[in-house]
């Protein structure tokens, strides 16, 4: 094999491998993006059914209930305009509390309940998850516009 052919094979193999990985990466990327919706957007049916997404807002005061099995909890997330019931099975994060900001990731069930796989409320007591803060701000400015 001449050196030129050898180099050609190397370059072609490299390009082929790179395009395969690029396709793989971009495909994985596209199918795993998780979008964020505010409770108002969910109430307006802008959020997808049967696809994972995130919601954020405040945990409505007095809405936290433990279901009879003891480990499933239900609470309401609100952006002060609209609210969504959320169900979550598992232990809530340390800084989860009523009246505080929260972000939940999961799916919307046909009955309108958001079933969360993951609940985030992190780092320190005064910190508001940026997504939750954005949801409140959007609802606030929507009200001002009316």
């Amino acid at each position, binding site marked *: 094999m001449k050196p030129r052919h050898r180099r050609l094979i190397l370059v072609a193999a490299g390009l082929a491998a790179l395009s395969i990985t690029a396709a793989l990466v971009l495909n994985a990327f596209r199918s*795993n993006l998780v979008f964020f919706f505010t409770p108002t957007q969910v109430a307006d049916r802008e959020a997808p059914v049967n696809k994972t997404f995130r919601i954020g807002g405040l945990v409505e005061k007095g809405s936290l209930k433990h279901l009879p099995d*003891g480990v499933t909890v239900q609470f309401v997330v609100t952006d002060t305009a609209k609210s969504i019931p959320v169900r979550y099975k598992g232990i809530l994060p340390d800084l989860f509390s009523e009246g505080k900001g929260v972000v939940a990731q999961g799916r919307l069930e046909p009955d309108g309940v958001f079933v969360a796989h993951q609940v985030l409320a992190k780092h320190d007591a005064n910190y508001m998850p940026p997504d939750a803060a954005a949801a409140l701000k959007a609802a606030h400015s929507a009200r001002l516009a009316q």
Partner: protein
Amino acid sequence: MIPEIGQFALSLALAVALAQAILPLAGAARGDAAWMAIARPAARVQFALLALAFACLTYSFVANDFSVAYVAEHSNTSLPLVYRITGVWGGHEGSMLLWTTLLAAWMFAVTLFSGHLPEDMVARVLGVMGIVSAGFLAFILFTSDPFTRLLPAPPNGRDLNPLLQDPGMVAHPPMLYMGYVGFSVAFAFAIAALLSGRLDAAWARWSRPWTLVAWMFLTLGIALGSAWAYYVLGWGGWWFWDPVENASFMPWLVGTALIHSLAVTEKRGSFRSWTVLLAICAFALSLLGTFLVRSGVLTSVHAFAVDPRRGVFILILFAALVGSSLVLYAARTARIGLGGSFDVVSRESSLLANNVLLTVAAASVLLGTLYPLALDALGAGKISVGPPYFDAVFVPLMAPAVFLMGVGPLARWKRASLPELAVLLRWALAVSVACGVLLPLVLGRWSPMIGLGLALAVWVVATSVVTLRERLRHASSAASAWARLRSTPRAWYGMFLAHLGIAVFIVGVTMDKGYESQKDVRMQAGDTVELSGYTFRMIGISKVQGPNFTATQAQIEITRGGRPVANLYPQRRIYTVQQMPMTDAAINAGLFRHLYVTLGDPLNATTWIVRVQVRPFVSWIWLGCLVMAIGGLLSATDRRYRVAAAIRRAGAAEIAVAQAAR
């Protein structure tokens, strides 16, 4: 008074850094020996000044001087002494100071271990590091001064974030930063090579030990961070693909590619411009990591707006350092040349493929980390990229990389023969495929991922054994085999060990992901729960008073088949100063499994939610990292780096003798 001394030391250090950045580089360009000679003393003085500044800040923490704003924000009189010391790097300003101090420490190390280098190389390396140091010192002094006074001083401080009050967090940031900053040495060597146009095997040999040591620290730093997340965050996850973690993982991936590429440059003279590019990228990603974590951009892209000076300064510094080095690279790379040619089947090509895979992996992490930030900054919507993306990308990228890891050390340089390799490796392949198929069946559950993981781990071990046997093939007796092993360079053992570390790591990940079990249950005193053959019994709940927290503590007794295994005491703490709740999980750690108990919310006065987990082989994840790091250290201390140093020092006459002896 003390904080002012610290601030003065920082200002002086900036002046010295500027001198170090300008004079030696200019001297090297003009061939002026006197200007070049400034590099070493300047770096040493800078290290002394920064060590003094760091000591001043530490003193302010230890002495509870709340008139220093940074101390007031990150400490408290009730904080135990060890956390008052580590509080120094508990916030933005202090961690930037730590970063710069470590940079000065690396420069100091370069002045000590560069006796064998030509003077112009030392001048350029230290000059480039001086530029980096000057940039960071200016950043600290103009936007993030840790010594700013807060008058009148508050009676007490706001306390350190309870999550950081942990032994793991004591060691994690310094280790991680040692790694980040250590790549600045590799970067400086790369830039010096571009400036001088000298990029040969000798250059790679000088640069290699520094890169290996930096890589070792980064490996340890990441492992410590992951272990911290595992036991402090309370839920037993050890890697979340969180942007903060990704920020440290990207330089690791590129750094790993760099140490392999450097090996080729040293042994064969190939991959030269690629090596230089990797060195630039590894440091650029280290900078990006520091900035991502420290600028607050992750909490919110709009955090930039809180202190626009900080954000803009960071961006300018980053763009200037990375941009100018890439421009220099583009201008000079043709002069460096590509190096020796090699065949499609050869050790070079397998290392090249590994390099490409590692770089693509780093790029895919970069995409997943920065894309959501970019979208948010443009106001184009909020998205997040979760673990499923990274899992989907990493397994197909890393599986061939691990496969090649077994082939590479056996393939010959320049041209290898495929049939010969196949003969060498057929048993290793058969054993690993058999293990991948059969082991999971023995262990109880078969899934493609478990099969693949175990097969890859066995593959690495089996090929390592084959590589070792090849080394000893011509040994006729036990004595000659021993002599061969003794004459094998330490760098080879380093590689051997680091690769075995990967196998240990893969076993840990596969077994933990495949066979972990967990249950969330409600429990009161006397209740029991069964999991994977272990019985967890709640004995009772009590109140505990800590130095700066109060806690509710459960006693959980664990038995297996009636025999006692352990008593665990998980807590829910309230840190009194910030009234912040925190879960303190209890772990019974063993080499082959962890028993992990977390106390959740109270349902009423006597009933609590408890999460119990059985985690097989989970400690192997960090054990694997430790083995990799030890491998890196072994390689870095190889005799030929030291011998080269000794020969230079010994003078010309002895060089001839040494060469004759070789």
